């Protein structure tokens, strides 16, 4: 029997990005287990204020991915260690714009990705989650 893995909750260095905890929602921003980090769906939040920021979709995607980078770095990982990403858009016609910004963040060897459209909350234009390698 191998050693039992344990769950470790991830806390962003910037407490304003700890949106789920601040909103008293029953989830943490991410969990690390062994070699993997599982992030909750992240939405466009201004890291200066902690408020949702609903500019053009390109801006929302950029904000979300830079917050995701912060979250992974807080856990000792980084965007280039992401292995699988899910991008959920409120409006499927934002796909091309999302993709354009997305490529800026993953210029080489991007992770596996699936993108689709669903109903999102609070007027968010995108919600992005990932699984990344720890360390």
């Amino acid at each position, binding site marked *: 029997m191998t050693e039992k893995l344990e769950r470790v909750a991830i806390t962003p260095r910037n407490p304003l990005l700890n949106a789920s905890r601040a909103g008293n929602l029953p989830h943490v921003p991410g*969990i690390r287990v062994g070699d993997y980090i599982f992030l909750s769906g992240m939405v466009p939040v201004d890291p200066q204020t902690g408020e949702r920021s609903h500019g053009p979709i390109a801006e929302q995607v950029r904000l979300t991915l830079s917050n995701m980078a912060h979250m992974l770095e807080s856990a000792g990982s980084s965007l280039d260690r992401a292995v699988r990403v899910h991008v959920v858009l409120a409006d499927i016609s934002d796909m091309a714009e999302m993709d354009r910004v997305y490529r800026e963040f993953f210029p080489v060897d991007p992770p596996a990705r699936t993108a689709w459209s669903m109903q999102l909350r609070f007027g968010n234009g995108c919600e992005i989650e990932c699984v990344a390698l720890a360390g």
Partner: protein
Amino acid sequence: MAVRGGAFIFVSGLTAIDPQTGERRPGTTASETRQILANLRQLLEAAGSSLDRVVKVNVLLHSMLEAPNMNEVYARFFPEPPPARTVCGARLPDGIKVIIECTVLA
């Protein structure tokens, strides 16, 4: 319903099912959430794991307006710290109001 792969258990999207009969048990978003998580607890314990080893949850709701009703029930099932999670609204089949899938440590 669930597959063990190495250190992880991958659980299919669960809907509100009566564990005695296997029949669907349609209800409110809150009652479907309660039924699903009660069944999930049973399923995980039968597999030698438990709710406090859940790592990542995906919740699909028929309407995001119901998210607070789901959250209220959901919060009672998971000890601190709760798992990572994503909640989205989706068109679900057959009048289903809630689907919950998750990844769990074995």
